């Protein structure tokens, strides 16, 4: 059971970090576009 928990936690950690990376990248792109559009 503990190994399953570790696996699920590892998967969640990796996936959430990926999603945060993507979110930040999207926000930065929007900021970049806004600056470029000035």
């Amino acid at each position: 059971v503990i190994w399953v928990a570790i696996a699920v936690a590892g998967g969640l950690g990796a996936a959430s970090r990926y999603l945060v990376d993507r979110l930040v990248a999207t926000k930065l792109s929007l900021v970049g576009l806004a600056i470029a559009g000035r």
Partner: protein
Amino acid sequence: MSDRSSSLRHVGLVFAGGMFGAVTRVALATWFPVRPGSYPWTTFGENLTGAFLLGFVLSFLAETRETDPTVRLLVGTGVLGAFTTYSTLAIEVSDLLGDGVVGTAITYAVASVALGVIAALLGIVTGGSLARRGGWAPRGNG
């Protein structure tokens, strides 16, 4: 494939890779436990190995002009992202400082970062070289 299902697939790849990377890391930490006050060789080795492999994979994919993100997300972001650990490095340095072995703590922190960069560079060179010599890279490249 729609953007939505493509995004779900990408998250699924990272999740699957993360499961494998985390279990491998914890298994190694269980088989090779670190005694209090001693150099954390297990985490040190995992981080350097992960840095080398990430450099290798990303360089290999770049050299072969791979546009499908499957391997990058599964192995790079998922497996190696979960296999390597910055937080454990930070905790172990903190523990070593708490145990009063300041020299070991500083050596561990500096060596992890400096040798990690060197390991990643070695991986980048090796991965790119293998892609070219193995005939996986497009002709006329570089």
